[in-house]
């Protein structure tokens, strides 16, 4: 039995289920990044504002990966940090702002100075790339992009003629996007069993599609739970074990984003990041102190301190159970 204690002193227990032969895929974040993220890889880091796998991004920085292509709908603080740490040469994204709290300083500098290859899409364009990737389709059609300048700067946005006539009997054309099949997708979630059956609630974004699109997948979770917890509610399993290669327990690993029901978003840090990232020296100092200067995410969590986490704590709001029924 593994026992972990997080910054608020809460103890999380992880148990194997006796009597099953499901493989145990749990490993440390350090081992998961070492094993599944290589220089030059295409790495998808998903989580739409919610459940952003920040801890995994920090571990990629600590291990000094280079030449990554990062795929992520909303490039967020963690992407700015990976850029500043020189891990990333190409970014595939549809929104490159610091949420509604200003700019991503490093990202802007690198794009404005021509030091970053940027493949720009819209949100649904990215969603459709994941959908095509997950379904191993050669392309995915969508109703947008007509008349946009994006296809002019992104040659991957192409057109297909429908083999069915349009409502007016004329031929119908639509834009399509190609699949994305990352070498590895990393997502954060609330809870999983040891073989990777993962419960996610609140905003679920495009996590399932991003995982299925990938060749390998790392799921970082707030807690490992007994298989019986997962199995009490199989519809909540957004990501089944067969799509998962590594399960990493890393409480509070989504900070400064949030984990619905576990801790709230650190809005103050988002606002602060606009200032930190504006100044390259201040940004470098931040990385030195908070990423290179912490051994792992547990150290980052304790460094933030109990008071900090207390401010992000939330009260309980439990779902009313549903009855799956049991044959007599």
């Amino acid at each position, binding site marked *: 039995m593994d026992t972990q204690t997080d910054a608020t002193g809460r103890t999380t227990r992880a148990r194997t289920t006796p009597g099953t032969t499901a493989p145990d895929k749990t490993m440390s974040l350090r081992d998961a990044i070492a094993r599944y993220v290589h220089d030059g890889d295409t790495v998808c880091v998903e989580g739409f504002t919610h459940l952003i796998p920040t801890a995994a991004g920090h571990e990629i920085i600590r291990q000094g990966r280079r030449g990554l292509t990062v795929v992520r709908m909303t490039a967020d603080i963690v992407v700015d940090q990976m850029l500043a740490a020189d891990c990333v040469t190409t970014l595939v994204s549809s929104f490159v702002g610091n949420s*509604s709290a200003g700019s991503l300083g490093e990202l802007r500098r690198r794009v404005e100075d021509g030091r970053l290859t940027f493949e720009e899409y*819209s949100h649904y364009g990215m969603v459709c790339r994941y959908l095509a990737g997950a379904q191993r389709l050669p392309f995915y059609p969508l109703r947008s992009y007509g008349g*946009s300048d994006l296809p002019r700067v992104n040659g991957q946005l192409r057109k297909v003629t429908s083999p069915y006539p349009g409502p007016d009997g004329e031929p119908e054309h639509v834009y399509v996007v190609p699949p994305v099949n990352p070498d590895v997708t990393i997502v954060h979630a609330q809870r999983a069993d040891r073989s990777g059956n993962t419960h996610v609630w609140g*905003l679920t974004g495009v996590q399932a*599609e991003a995982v299925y699109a990938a060749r390998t997948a790392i799921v970082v979770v707030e807690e490992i739970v007994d298989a019986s917890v997962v199995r009490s509610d199989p519809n909540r399993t957004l990501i089944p074990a067969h799509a998962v290669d590594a399960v990493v327990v890393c409480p509070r690993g989504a900070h400064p984003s949030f984990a619905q029901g576990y801790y709230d978003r650190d*809005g103050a840090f988002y606002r602060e990041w606009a200032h930190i990232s504006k100044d390259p020296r201040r940004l470098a100092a931040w990385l030195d102190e908070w990423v290179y200067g912490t051994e792992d995410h547990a150290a980052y969590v304790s460094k933030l301190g109990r008071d900090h986490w207390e401010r992000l704590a939330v009260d309980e709001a439990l779902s009313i159970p549903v009855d799956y029924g049991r044959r007599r």
Partner: protein
Amino acid sequence: MTVPALAPTSSEVLAVVASRELAGKRTVFAGIGLPTLAASLAHLTVAPGLEVVYESGVCGAHPSHLPETIADSVLITDAEAVISMPALFGYVLQGGHIDVGFLGAAQIDRWGNLNSSVIGDWHRPDVRLPGSGGAIEVMANSREVFVVMRRHEPRSLTDALDFCTSPGPDRARADGIRPRGAGVTRVITELGLLARGGPGEELRLTAVHPGVTVDQVRAATGWELDVADGLAVIEPPTIAELRLLRDTVDPDRIYLR
């Protein structure tokens, strides 16, 4: 209860004008800030059944606190539905369920095309902006689009976009793609209201705030602005509207700066 003794702020005026344009609408796709203030006010006044759909996948939110982002945890707890991105963009938005989409932009042109990507050249921009997010899809799939522009100035309401991120239906058709919605039909600014009916039409000035002249608006607009027959003067926010905004919608004045 606040006594609305204070003159309405610019944000309050914009929110009130936008709310009135939502009369009778059923579904609105909105970001946090002025659009949600407008939608919340409309819900209490001219559009009682109005549902706000958020880009994060939240439908029918009942937040305990005023949300800070479209993904705020208070929008999720107690919501009627929280759906995935493929469902939100595919089934709800592209599926044709949105009456009005709210969009912002750094630049808009006379046809209602929007730029939220770059100032300058895309390949080596003077300013790299956040980009589309879902704006391209909101524009392409909503029945109509409202734009709130806090600043009405020629570099924002421009004759020629530096880059067209989110095109209206005319540009779509010229690109061989059958357009669906009307594109931008309302632009609400600090000076007045611009409107167009749909494809083929330019944005025209249809109303001004009290005390604003047509010449003032023309001087602040980057293109030769057409003025509608029977130009109206916008009725200032009523005491009832201000009370609702200040006491019910945003009592902590988080967005009513």
